[in-house]
């Protein structure tokens, strides 16, 4: 399942998708309960390969919970999640990356003592194969390190973080670390990328720039993207499809225009503060 490809000149992708009519991700009737709180309530939606799907909803709607279900951090109370037709709920948390699924975290989940380069190198964990015995015996470890280091360095450069490569992550500005999250996620050579509020804390012009970055990496890496974002202009501009949630339920789904004008969505957002 690991993908030990040789070092490549530039950041590139390999398209391994096959049966094109199965949706890439198929979430059906997923419920997640935390004690008395119902975070997800029978949520169903699907994402087609190669698209950008926006996931919106007021605070506490259950968007991050959805991410945590897909990355196998939360066990749903009921429901099924299929990825490329395969039962995702049978895969352990650490198997997700090997399937080509990567994510970023809303509130940053970086490795603070590591440099940015090392953070990205851990992101490429699924792209390596050296375990404890080979590390001790030094069988192929140096070569793998060089390959992953170069690959990670290229990614940092692509996201404009090259000059911080050898700086520890702790203490850098929030916006920089948000980009680092993206670089780290890309290091796994994912086919499916989940981004949890990548634009949080950015200024207006930075948000526009980020929107372009997302479109760019989608093209460069041949990605399918699930994007959670509160910046409506960005979501509406770059998404092929938008799913709106409230109280753990889907309230609307369709093209950006359809969802934007859906009275239920308008009501949900007027009720909330957004």
């Amino acid at each position: 399942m690991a993908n030990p490809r040789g070092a490549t000149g530039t950041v590139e992708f390999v398209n391994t998708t096959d049966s094109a009519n199965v949706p890439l991700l198929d979430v059906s009737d997923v419920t997640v309960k935390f004690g008395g709180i119902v975070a997800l309530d029978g949520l169903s939606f699907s994402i087609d390969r190669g698209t950008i799907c926006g996931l919106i909803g007021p605070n506490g709607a259950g968007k991050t919970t959805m991410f945590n279900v897909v990355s196998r951090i939360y066990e749903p109370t009921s429901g099924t999640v299929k990825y490329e037709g395969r039962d995702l709920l049978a895969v352990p948390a650490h198997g997700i990356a090997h399937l080509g699924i990567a994510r970023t975290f809303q509130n940053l989940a970086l490795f603070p003592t590591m440099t940015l380069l090392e953070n990205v190198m851990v992101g490429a964990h699924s792209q390596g194969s050296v375990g404890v015995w080979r590390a001790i015996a030094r069988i192929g470890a140096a070569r793998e390190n060089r390959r992953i280091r170069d690959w990670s360095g290229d990614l940092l450069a692509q996201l404009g973080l090259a000059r911080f490569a050898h700086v520890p992550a702790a203490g850098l500005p929030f916006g920089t670390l948000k980009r680092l999250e993206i670089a780290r996620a890309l290091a796994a050579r994912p086919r499916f990328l989940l981004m949890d509020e990548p634009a949080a804390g950015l200024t207006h012009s930075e948000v526009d720039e980020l929107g372009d970055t997302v479109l760019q990496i989608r093209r460069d890496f041949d990605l399918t993207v699930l994007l959670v974002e509160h910046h409506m202009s960005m979501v509406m501009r770059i998404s092929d499809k938008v799913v709106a949630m409230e109280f753990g339920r889907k309230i609307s789904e369709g093209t950006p225009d359809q969802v934007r004008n859906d009275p239920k969505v308008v009501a949900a957002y007027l009720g909330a503060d957004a």
Partner: protein
Amino acid sequence: MWKIHEGSARHWMIRLLGVAVLAFVVVWIPTQMSSSRIGQVTDAFILMIAAMSLNLVLGFTGQISIGHSAFFGVGGYTAAILIKDHGWSPGYTFYVAAVVAFVVGCVVALPALRIRGIYLALVTLAVAVLFPTLVRWKKLAWLTEGSMGIDSVRYEDVPVWPILGELKGREGRAVFMFWLGLIIVIVTYLVCRGIVKSRFGRALVAIRDNETAAAVMGVNLTTTKVLVFGVSAALCALAGVLSTLKSGVITPDGQYVTLLGSIVFLLVMIVGGAGTLWGPIVGGLVYVLLDNTTRDIGTNDSGILGTLFGWADQSPATLILGLVLVIIMFAAPYGLVGLAKRLSRKVVVVIPRPAGTAKPS
């Protein structure tokens, strides 16, 4: 400030110089020092190995263990039993002890899969307390010889290594144990270095920094934690074997077999520098130096240290180191090595090799 590039000729020169100085000191010790001094350095080696092993689990992976004295004991007892009961040649017991301790370590790791922090500390503490009790257990007396422990497990005659020349008597044994200890220090260091500078080592630090994120990156938390505990226990057992061969005895009250051993390893590791490759080595040296300079304070009862620590009936090294530890916690989170690194950065900065296939602009 002096800037040098990683991997440049200058950088290699500095490294080579460091190795040369180290090698000089290391050769100087057994040729010029008295055999009791040599023995003290060997004691430092034993501590270095144990602290390096603990560092893998605690310093790099962030899994607290107060149970390493048990792994130390497992090593010591495995060697003693094989030599005494089965007539093994001491050299081979290192391998068996490592394998046995690896298995024990993997089992002890199981709680670490579910619990963290203070709870893991308590479980490993229980292991440390349990081990001497188990060894004393009447039903195991056929194996461990109870509280009496196992004695005369030394080398009958130390093996002849041509490079060392002929080694005779007490002196010769001290010199031999020194070199044997040094070899195991180097092996342990290389094992740790190999691990830390690899994909597996990055996974360890990732677990320490953010377990959930590590799993999302594809790190298998279960196997990684179990393996690192196993390897760590195996290395710690080497220290146990060395200690047994040096002193010739192992008892359930042995210096590092009891809970106190775990505490000393912990102190050595943290004072030297947790999560650094050289920390435990520096820490071991500092501890033994301190131990030997303060040992007599209790009996002399003079001077300021005597007044401060005279009441302690044992060597106050642990006590003093404990105080040093508190200071270090505030002044240098990465111990003496971290402090040295920070200070040296004011003089020399090593610029890392650029990462990436693109030409630096």
